[in-house]
């Protein structure tokens, strides 16, 4: 490039910004213990040796409505829990109420193994969950195998689900057949997680 001579000075003057640590594919999935909507403790450590899906969720978000209203997420939950996958839906919104979430999840047809609450956002922040939905897939080895969007089309239109590349399905199918997840990181799309301030 033509402007190499100026770069040294500019670089010298630059200060690296501090940004939150994001979990990268290959990292050990951070341990957590949270309560499900029935008040029981759910621990990642108890799922050892299983493929685990973490799905950040907020039923008031139009992106989440796209995937529940269309039946897409309940169907994925049903399909993969039948294959031994542990599917944990997490709500990290500030002050999320367990009994309200239990009722709402039932109404939306959730087939998740666990619906858990993270009202102080600890689990969400440990995983760098940005949006609803934001999907993390953890392999049997306890390492993060996929981090990102549910699929490839950033929209609230359920008609796009069929047309999209299904990133989470691809990751799960690869893990369940002992293969490497090819696309391990994408940019999640959705509403921001409404963390406690």
């Amino acid at each position, binding site marked *: *490039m*033509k*402007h*190499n*001579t*100026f*770069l040294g*000075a*500019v*670089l010298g003057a*630059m200060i*690296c*910004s501090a*940004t939150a640590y*994001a979990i990268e594919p290959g990292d050990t999935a951070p341990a957590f213990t949270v309560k499900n909507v029935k008040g029981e403790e759910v621990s990642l450590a108890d799922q050892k040796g299983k493929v685990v899906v973490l799905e950040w969720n907020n039923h*008031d*978000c*139009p*992106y989440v409505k796209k995937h529940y209203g269309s039946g897409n997420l309940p169907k994925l939950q049903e399909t993969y829990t039948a294959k031994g996958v542990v599917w944990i839906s997490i709500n990290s919104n500030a002050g999320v109420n367990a009994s309200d979430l239990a009722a709402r999840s039932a109404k939306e047809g959730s087939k998740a193994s666990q619906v858990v609450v993270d009202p102080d956002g600890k689990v969400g922040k440990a995983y760098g969950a*940005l*949006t609803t939905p934001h999907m993390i897939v953890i392999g049997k080895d306890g390492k993060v195998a996929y981090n990102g969007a549910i699929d490839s089309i*950033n*929209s*609230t*239109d359920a008609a796009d689900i069929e047309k999209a590349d299904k990133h989470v399905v691809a990751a799960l199918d690869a893990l369940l057949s002992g293969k490497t997840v090819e696309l391990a*990181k*994408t*940019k999640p*799309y*959705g*509403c*921001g*997680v*409404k*963390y406690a301030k």
Partner: protein
Amino acid sequence: MAGMNFSVLLAAGLPLVAPLSAAVKSGHAMAELIAGVSSYQPGKSFPVAVRLTVDPGWHTYWINPGVGGMPVKATWTLPEGWTAGELQQPVPKRFMTGDLPGFGYEGETVFLVDLTPPAGATGEAECKVKLAWLTCDESACVPGDAELSVKLEAGNGKPGKEAAAVEAAKKIPVPPAQDLLFGVEEREGRLILSVLSSEIDLAGVSAFPATPDVIDPAEPLTFEKGKDAWMASGKKSEYLKGPVTQLDIVVSGGKLKQPLLLSWRAEE
């Protein structure tokens, strides 16, 4: 009393303008389609404007929405042989939604689209657009959509209700008149942007990355004057796979008369 109003208009000798669809409210925004001409000329492009007015406290998103959010999407249904250009988006502002940085618009935004009738077009043409957007505020996101249409007769293409379109055109970034030697280089996880300073003054401009997922939107882009070039740097997006190959940025304000779109492509 609609009939009476109509006759009053006729009596006042006001010209009849092309019928326009009424504004449509959906979610937290109101959408409207405005033609820049009173009629179309076969074979000749003309602009139409899409006006989106977002409720106070809410925002909608630019072509690079940042993290979360969704760009406004326009899907056209046009008579046979007609084509629609891209939804041309004005300069955005940068905002935070909770912890997430984003680019977009508050209040009223006017987008432009060029429509082109085929050379052999005749008679009345109905141009329809389905618009979809997302508005968010600190605590929620609400989608909106609207189907809008405009009917135009073939004619001399004289300007119609063009005021909004003309006003909008000033805010749409354009490529610079001459090549400005815009360079991008990757160094230690950061992207260094340079614009040769002999031909442009970028003092005090606002700069925004228009290509999504190349520069992390977490920090604002700021140009400072070096010896021979204006320089800015931004953290490389964690979602950019491999080396940087292209970047468009928008610069506006400062001493610029018109917002500019600067494009960089890696040499083959």
